[in-house]
């Protein structure tokens, strides 16, 4: 057996550690030619970017919404459209939109038509609601409190018109995260899992599955300690200290944090990555306790739409959600959206004092 393994190992192919491939070889020729020499851009219609180079060359980009998870049928369908109506070169944005580059304005219309005929929306540019950032969820993650693709699909169905039009005050980035680690990142509106009960521990498994000191070290509030339970080495949680974050669950799966009823969804607003106008901002908690309700999460969609359309009606041009709230103030935000303000909105984490109002700056 050992010999057989040794023989097999010999035949193994050593990897070529080539790392990140050079994008130049796949780039549209006009992009290679004008690399670093672009002059300006505009948007002739929603979903289309138009860039002009110092050389006078022009390139049009058609942005297409996808389901992110693509099989051979979808890939070949999209590629057939690009090969027929485009010029064979594409790229993906950070939010899983497909971008198709063409050298002539005349090609843009037929390209959009072909995508629309195939059931793919064109949009997501400028002041639209672009594709929701997308994590793995129940499809593939080992610690998810909810699904990702289903939440994104449900919400994008509801926000479809806002993707294909540019009618928002500024761009809107919505994110989702299936656990409190927040893989989806900062968003104008973020939909994140929020657990509400401490982990349920299967003491029979802890000793064999978990490296106990690492699990103890992982807890942000030092609520976990080693313990003997039913004569077996295990871990116990001080449930009064526990903040139900689920940080112990990845290194120790027998500490099940996910619960069909008590793992809820929370909504956060005002996150922003760009340095434009204000510095980058973190998102802030505005709503919680929403049920994890597949397949379409209607309660979540309702709150998201309430916030989104309040923003759409009240914000000024170029204000992101965070900029808008900074202008109108949080009391007005809660008043306008009708969302309840609770003691849980007041931070008590590190540096919490910085988020308290130490002034007489109050809007009446």
């Amino acid at each position, binding site marked *: 057996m050992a010999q057989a393994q040794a023989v097999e*190992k010999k035949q193994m*192919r*050593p*990897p*070529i*550690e080539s*790392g*990140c*491939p*050079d994008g130049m070889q*796949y780039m549209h020729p006009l*992009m290679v030619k004008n*690399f670093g020499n*672009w002059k*300006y*851009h505009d948007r002739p219609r929603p979903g289309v970017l138009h*860039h002009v180079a110092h050389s006078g060359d022009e390139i049009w980009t058609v942005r297409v919404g996808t389901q*992110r*998870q*693509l*099989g*051979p*049928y979808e*890939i070949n369908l999209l590629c*057939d459209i690009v090969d027929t109506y485009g010029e064979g*070169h594409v*790229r993906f944005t950070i939010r*899983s939109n497909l971008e198709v*580059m063409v050298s002539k304005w005349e090609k843009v219309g037929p390209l959009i038509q072909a995508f629309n*005929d*195939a*059931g793919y*929306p064109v949009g997501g540019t400028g002041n639209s609601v672009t594709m929701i*950032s997308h994590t793995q*969820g129940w499809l*593939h*993650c080992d610690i998810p*409190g909810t*699904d990702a693709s*289903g939440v994104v*699909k449900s919400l994008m169905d509801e926000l*479809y018109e806002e993707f294909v039009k540019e009618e928002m005050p500024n761009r809107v980035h919505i994110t989702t995260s299936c656990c*409190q*680690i*927040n*893989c989806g*990142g*900062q968003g104008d509106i973020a939909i994140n899992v929020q657990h509400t009960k401490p982990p349920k521990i299967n003491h029979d498994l802890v000793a064999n599955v978990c490296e106990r000191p690492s699990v103890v070290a992982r807890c942000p509030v030092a609520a976990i300690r080693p313990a003997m339970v039913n004569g077996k080495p295990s871990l116990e949680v001080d449930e009064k200290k526990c903040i139900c974050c689920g*940080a112990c669950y990845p290194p120790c799966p027998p500490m099940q944090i*996910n619960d*069909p009823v008590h*793992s809820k969804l929370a909504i956060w607003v005002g996150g922003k*990555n*760009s*340095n*434009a106008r*204000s510095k980058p901002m973190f998102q802030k908690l505005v709503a919680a306790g929403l049920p994890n309700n*597949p*397949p379409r999460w209607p309660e979540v969609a309702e709150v998201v739409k309430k916030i989104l359309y309040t923003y759409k009606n009240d914000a000024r041009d170029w204000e992101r959600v965070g900029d808008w709230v900074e202008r109108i103030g949080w009391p007005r935000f809660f008043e306008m959206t009708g969302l309840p303000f609770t003691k849980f909105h007041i931070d008590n984490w*590190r540096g919490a004092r910085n988020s308290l109002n130490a002034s007489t700056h109050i809007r009446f």
Partner: protein
Amino acid sequence: MAEAQKTPKDPARHSSFVPKEKKSSKPFHDTPMLDQLESGPWPSFVTGLKRLAHDNNMMVDLLGQLEYSYKTRLGYWKGGTVSVFGYGGGIIPRFSEVASMFPESKEFHTLRVQPPAGNHYTTKLLRQLSNSWSKWGSGLIAFHGQTGNIMFIGATSENTQHFFDEINEYGFDLGGAGPCVRTAMSCVGAARCEQSCTNEHRIHRTLVNNFIDDMHRPALPYKFKFKVSGCPNDCMNSIQRADFAVIGTWRDDMQVDQKGVKEYIESHGRKYTIDNVITRCPTNALSLNDDDTIEVDNKSCVRCMHCINVMTKGLKPGKDRGVTVLIGGKRTLKIGDTMGTVIVPFMKMDSDEDFEKIRELAATVIDFWAENGLEHERCGEMIERIGLANFLEGIGIEVDPNMITHPRTSSYIRLDDWDQEAQKWIDRQKAKATA
């Protein structure tokens, strides 16, 4: 559009198409909940999964398990250890906890593969990747994961090696998983954006390809991410989600084309320009002249990009370009979300030596963190624990007021070496003046 969904022009060439012929031998599970995600105007991933289930049994059971998750509101994947020969990471192993019900998808691993810098593809390449994956895996690919990988979702332990061997031959390599340097990201940048202030793709590849050993053989305290954005709009979200964020910027005056400015005012109006450009400047560095030209106080400009974003034909970044480096951004685990902190306010990024310098900086940072970071502690968490001043000393970078929002407000500090430290600053200023 919603109409087009209902009556596709060519049903066989539409996102809602489901093949008539079933090649997979296993009967479908009932999926009443997932079925509800097939309606609506947005392309449905469920319909996509069903198309694949017509093709292979793995996806038949995958759909079954996903429906089971929807029904019970719980996930059923567990990690483990799977890798390809010679590497210690790059694959996310997934073993089903409910394999007795769904045996065909009991092993459903993801391979994380690094996309070309800037996410550029030809259709030929996309088809090639898709063909390779249909041969060895489920056929399902995510473009892209949140770290920036192409995610090839769903392979057995055995086939991960075959698939990797095949795509590795035509230039693709695994990304990172575990405590290691992770796959990096860069924006479209200089390839198609007039706001780009640097060669994002070259920085991206210089950084990540120099730490390829630290990517493939996880041995760091925790993950380490590089992200490169060409301008302060930071389309790669690097400040909030990269341990090492590189952002293009400029240090001379922004370029103003007064003709473009005037045209903007003509088409949008004076009031709109004042309300949306002039008064939106965070440092009051803009002024509108009576003749509808714009005046920029470049010394006060913080390069936020807002006015440049609005007047794309009138305003542009300056010509003396380089990058700002921020270190320590990450998501919630464990001390709460952190943004990166400015470590290098400006460095040129033109010559080979400049690129060598940023590579050296990254190596110094990673070495110091590998030496001093605790297990499962991100670089930003280490900086918070030891203090920025200690970190700077550790990596040999002098303090700079650009690194802070404001000086300390607490008097509880020992100032033993104040005179010495003050002298260092004075000496540096003198050296700069004579340089």
